[in-house]
């Protein structure tokens, strides 16, 4: 009993903090209540739920050899200290997703997002990562596609691989869109981000020829270069010659990024990708730690309402009601299907003991949820007027300070034109109006927090651009790495029909596959950039649906494996989150297809525009018949994409049920684990 006392105290603390967050209505509460509620919930969940899953559901055996021990080669399979591996795994799963989703979700107030992040990660997200890690760890570190093939059959594996490729395309498009939104018309930001390319190449040359393998020192040199670029960026932006040279419209930036993606993904990895990843990894860990410390020191009050009127679904940031759209808007941070690819990637090959699996699989995801909580806090400490000015599409609030102030004030969030121009000036931007995509909002919040701790308001512009750079840096790394990964997925898929495509070393197929991958995400990026509602409105829900569907697929695999292990009495651990994700994603997907609300349903929107086109009318924001046709075409492509995702997830549901029924009819376990050594561990 005594060993539980400390945990009971933590649980009580968490419950009190959650109650304060949930009950307060009129007076502003301190952000630390949310932080305390989240941290206590995570600690208790880890101590009791993760260990319950480890001991009872998975029956982890610390003496059972992991892939790193069975196949140790000093290269891919290396038994790694769990603290180091935690850092490695966390750096691989945490990206822009947990930062952007919660910022967008703040339009409904901080309360719904907080509750979903805490409940979602404990019951779904961390369970998924942990289960996939466990399944892969018991099968020599095989990948998600291979695991599904092993446990659910060839067809299911191929469908999952296809789904994963489509999801990769959408993720790349939406990440690139965030960069476009953050850097458009912003010469200072554009210069600092552009400067990272030659900087990374210098670092690459250094690690290649001058001091091979000295990652630490080259990263320090790179960091100095980055800080210099941020400082110098201000003069560049103010220069009458260079300022305009680094000012790009969203469409120009879109083409720059597409060109960048195509070139960067075929360059040798040591030249650009690897050195920039070193920088972005260390910067990411550093910035997240600094943000946590900053929030604790500043202890800011939350200015956003607990719940806004937009829970009903008429919000300007994204369309749709709380159910189901909140649960796909905050994807990473609560539950992210993409993590299943990481948890069945390098991590299971590095884990030293099965006893380390809970802290890596479950623990690292709790950490990511904590990042999401910080992003939500960041968006919620801003003046709600500023938040809605930054995140509403120009079609709703106009493009100048007085129209934006009037429109946002009319929403019920009073703001003056002066505050809008002053905020832009403070952070060194031309404007903050309609800077959608989440990254600029988070950067304003981080500038607020960091400048409170270091430098005061004089440093705000520096910290804002530091935050933009920090986000853009790892998004660009993801675009580059993701294009390469997408290329291999596509080559695997095409090879099913044309076996010659399997040759990943030969130039022809790899260039074709790279080109197709870039064209695929470039198409959605261009569509998002030219979308009158700002693109995020359209693309983020599609991304959220696809990501949560992948999570449902991973959890269905976990369910099938539990049935095949004859552990089906514990299968509720995975079936409950699976059911919830299926309910959310299927209903969100269906609404995107068949909703008659033109702001939600792609087909309804297409119907409205094609009806107008037949009458010869041009509807805003289209300016010509050609643009009308483009909008209708885009709507139909989006609808087709959502329909494909629905078909993928429903067919995998079918394979899961079939596998589970077959497993029930069999007497013994049928899961294809690498057997434990013959000498029993106990």
């Amino acid at each position: 009993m005594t060993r539980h006392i400390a945990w009971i105290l933590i649980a009580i603390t968490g419950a009190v903090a959650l109650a304060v967050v949930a009950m307060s209505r009129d007076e502003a509460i301190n952000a630390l209540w949310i932080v305390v509620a989240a941290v206590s919930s995570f600690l208790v969940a880890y101590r009791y739920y993760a260990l319950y899953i480890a001991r009872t559901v998975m029956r982890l055996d610390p003496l059972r050899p992991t892939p790193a021990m069975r196949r140790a080669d000093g290269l891919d399979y290396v038994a790694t200290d769990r603290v180091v591996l935690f850092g490695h795994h966390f750096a691989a799963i945490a990206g822009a997703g947990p930062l952007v989703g919660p910022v967008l979700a703040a339009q409904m107030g901080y309360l719904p997002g907080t509750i979903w992040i805490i409940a979602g990660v404990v019951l779904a997200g961390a369970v998924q990562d942990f289960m996939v890690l466990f399944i892969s760890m018991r099968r020599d570190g095989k990948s998600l596609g291979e695991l599904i093939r092993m446990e659910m059959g060839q067809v299911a594996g191929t469908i999952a691989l296809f789904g994963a490729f489509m999801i990769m395309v959408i993720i790349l498009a939406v990440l690139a869109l965030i960069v476009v939104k953050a850097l458009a018309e912003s010469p200072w930001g554009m210069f600092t981000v552009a400067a990272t390319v030659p900087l990374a190449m210098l670092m690459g040359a250094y690690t290649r020829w001058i001091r091979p393998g000295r990652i630490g020192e080259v990263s320090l040199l790179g960091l100095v270069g980055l800080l210099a670029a941020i400082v110098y960026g201000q003069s560049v932006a103010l220069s009458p010659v260079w300022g305009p040279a680094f000012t790009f419209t969203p469409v120009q930036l879109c083409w720059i990024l597409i060109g960048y993606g195509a070139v960067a993904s075929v360059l040798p990895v040591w030249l650009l990708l690897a050195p920039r990843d070193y920088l972005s990894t260390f910067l990411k860990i550093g910035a997240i730690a600094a943000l946590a410390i900053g929030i604790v020191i500043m202890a800011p009050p939350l200015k956003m309402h607990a719940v806004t009127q937009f829970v009903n679904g008429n919000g300007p940031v994204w369309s749709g009601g709380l159910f189901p759209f909140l649960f796909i808007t905050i994807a990473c941070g609560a539950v992210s299907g993409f993590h299943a690819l990481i948890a069945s990637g390098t991590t299971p090959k590095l884990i030293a003991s099965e006893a380390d699996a809970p802290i890596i699989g479950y623990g690292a995801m709790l950490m990511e949820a904590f990042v999401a909580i910080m992003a939500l806090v960041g968006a919620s400490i801003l003046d709600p007027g500023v938040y809605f000015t930054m995140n509403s599409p120009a079609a709703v609030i106009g493009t100048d300070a007085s129209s934006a102030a009037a429109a946002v004030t009319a929403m019920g969030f009073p703001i003056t034109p002066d505050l809008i121009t002053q905020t832009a000036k403070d952070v060194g931007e031309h404007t903050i109006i309609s800077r959608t995509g989440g990254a600029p909002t988070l950067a304003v919040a981080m500038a607020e927090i960091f400048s409170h701790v270091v430098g005061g308001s004089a440093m705000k512009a520096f910290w804002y651009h530091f935050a933009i750079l920090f986000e853009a840096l790892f998004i660009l790394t993801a675009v580059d790495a993701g294009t390469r990964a997408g290329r291999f997925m596509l080559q695997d898929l095409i090879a099913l029909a044309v076996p010659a495509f399997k040759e990943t070393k030969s130039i022809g197929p790899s260039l074709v596959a790279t080109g197709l991958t870039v064209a695929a995400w470039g198409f959605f990026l261009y569509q998002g950039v030219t979308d009158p509602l700002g693109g995020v409105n359209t693309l983020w829900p599609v991304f959220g649906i696809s990501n949560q569907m992948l999570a449902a697929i991973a959890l269905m695999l976990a369910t099938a494996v539990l049935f095949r292990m004859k552990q089906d009495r514990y299968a509720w651990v995975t079936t409950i989150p699976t059911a919830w994700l299926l309910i959310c994603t299927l209903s969100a997907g269906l609404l995107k297809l068949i909703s008659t609300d033109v702001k939600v349903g792609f087909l309804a929107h297409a119907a409205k525009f094609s009806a107008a086109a037949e009458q010869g009318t041009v509807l805003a924001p289209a300016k010509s018949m050609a643009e009308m046709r483009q909008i209708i075409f885009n709507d139909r492509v989006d609808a087709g994409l959502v329909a494909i995702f629905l078909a993928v997830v429903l067919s995998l549901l079918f394979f899961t049920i079939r596998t589970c029924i077959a497993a029930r009819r069999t007497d013994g376990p049928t899961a294809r684990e690498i057997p434990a050594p013959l000498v029993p561990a106990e």
Partner: protein
Amino acid sequence: MARMMVGVPDYDSYALHMRTHHPGQPVMTRTQFFRDRQEARYGGKNGGKCC
């Protein structure tokens, strides 16, 4: 140990492993080892980065 976070395992462990388990087989030099690991991590077969 920050190196492991960006996918570069310990060279000495690798060299020790090669000497004990595969004596007589060629062992990569430190530089070769680093380049090999860079290619393995970033070549694209590892599923890339997360969102």
